[in-house]
């Protein structure tokens, strides 16, 4: 099956191993190899990647603030291409999104705001 990186992969929905919607494929990273054609290495899921598609300066600014939030932050989350497969209208990864920073904002908002609201 033919897969066009921009038309069929970029901006597609990503679903994690537990079936949760885990963001969209914000960027595609190619690996350059000596003497051989480049190949797809990773996809990136991150506001940093998304912002850099509009303006690199926004992206740097966001990354600088994100870095303060903890270890492993401040750089886009990368999912190896080999962990993905096409599934219906989305791409499924065989990784639990909780083990990546993809849900960092979601988790923070849940713990600090939603769970403190009565009935949340």
């Amino acid at each position, binding site marked *: 099956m033919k897969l066009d990186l921009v038309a069929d992969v970029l901006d597609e929905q990503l679903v994690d191993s537990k079936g949760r919607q885990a963001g969209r494929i914000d960027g595609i990273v190619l690996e350059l190899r000596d003497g051989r054609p480049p190949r797809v290495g990773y996809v990136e899921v991150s506001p940093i990647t998304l912002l850099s598609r509009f303006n690199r300066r926004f992206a740097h600014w966001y990354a600088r603030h994100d870095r303060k939030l903890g270890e492993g932050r401040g750089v886009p989350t990368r999912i190896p291409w080999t962990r993905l497969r096409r599934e219906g*209208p989305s791409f499924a990864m065989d990784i639990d999104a909780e083990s990546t920073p993809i849900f960092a904002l979601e988790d923070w908002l849940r713990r600090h705001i939603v769970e403190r609201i009565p009935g*949340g």
Partner: protein
Amino acid sequence: MKKIFEVALGIVTSVGGFLEIGSIATAAQAGASFGFQLGWSVVLGTVCIAFLVEMSGRFSAVSKHTIPDAMRERFGVNLFALPLLVMLAVSLLVLAAEIGGVAVAIEMATGISFPIWALPVALLAWVLLWKTTFSFIENGISLLGLVTLAFAVGVAKLHPSYVAIVRGFVPTLPHHDKAHYWFIAVSVLGASISPYLYYFYSSGAIEEKWDESYVGINRAIAAIGMGFGGFLSVAVLVLAAMLFHPRGISVDHYQQLPELLSGVFHRTGFWLVIASLAIACIGATLEIALSLAYLVAQGFGWNWGEDLEPKDDARFALTYTILIFAASLFSLIGVDPLKLTEISMSLTAASLPLGTFPFLILMNDREYLGEHTNGHLGNAVVLVISALSAVLAVVSIPLELVGGG
């Protein structure tokens, strides 16, 4: 049998959910200022939204994608960002107008002025979204919305000349107040063709797990539901045309709206208008807030769903929370809800093509719809009416602002 029930329910919810602050206020202004002459704008708007709703239901049933989802996927984030930002800005104003509508209804019922009610109304809307499910909102509130049928009963009791009403369905040039005529026409179009309505419908089709077998049902719901909804807008226009127009009264305040029915039903009519306004506007508040949260969540690939607990979609739930309370600030500081309605409806009309044109491209994409892509008629209707609305809006909004005519 189950599907017949679903069609009936779908129609009832579309009818109950059709009228909101925009369609009530703009139809009343149209009738008051120009008699039956602007009936065509309600008809054009209704035809366009019926086509759009049919398309969005078909799109989601066949492709399993919502519209924002597919827009981002097909056009990329850079092109998606423009309609997203414009729609958020314009719909926030519409949301503010709806919250103002509920607050004004409570003002008329209690005599306590509307800014006081802004936050309680926002809180009520928020609690309903936070605590309940999609079907509760869609079915419960829309069933209550059937109180708006009172406008149709009111018309029947006045025994209007139905020939004269139908004559208004043919567009004609204005005899007086030219700029105002086109501005009201644009507001009516913007009020009928609400983008949030078809975005909401597309998310609903996904939440209710529609598949290709729903294409026929969807068509019936869209045509009959929107048709009856437009019929109610016409009823408001006719009431205003018969009660206000001959006396030279223009609709400048919401406080005038109860007169639409109090002449026919007396004291009950007063309460019917207030109930209609309150219920229609709270229903629209919920739909718009949800629809915008869907738009953002789907565009960024977050978990979303009105049937999930807020803790399972924290970003989605907090998005509608912020929108509702932000929109309530307009009424809180005393911005006139009628002015807000006029502005937001005409801006909706001006920005229509930003949403409908990309959507039409999707509707003609075989990768999403296979054999269910649009026919020529659907394409032409939506293309022409949304382009016409935008052009009229861009021309008439500045003229209205400088008070020309």
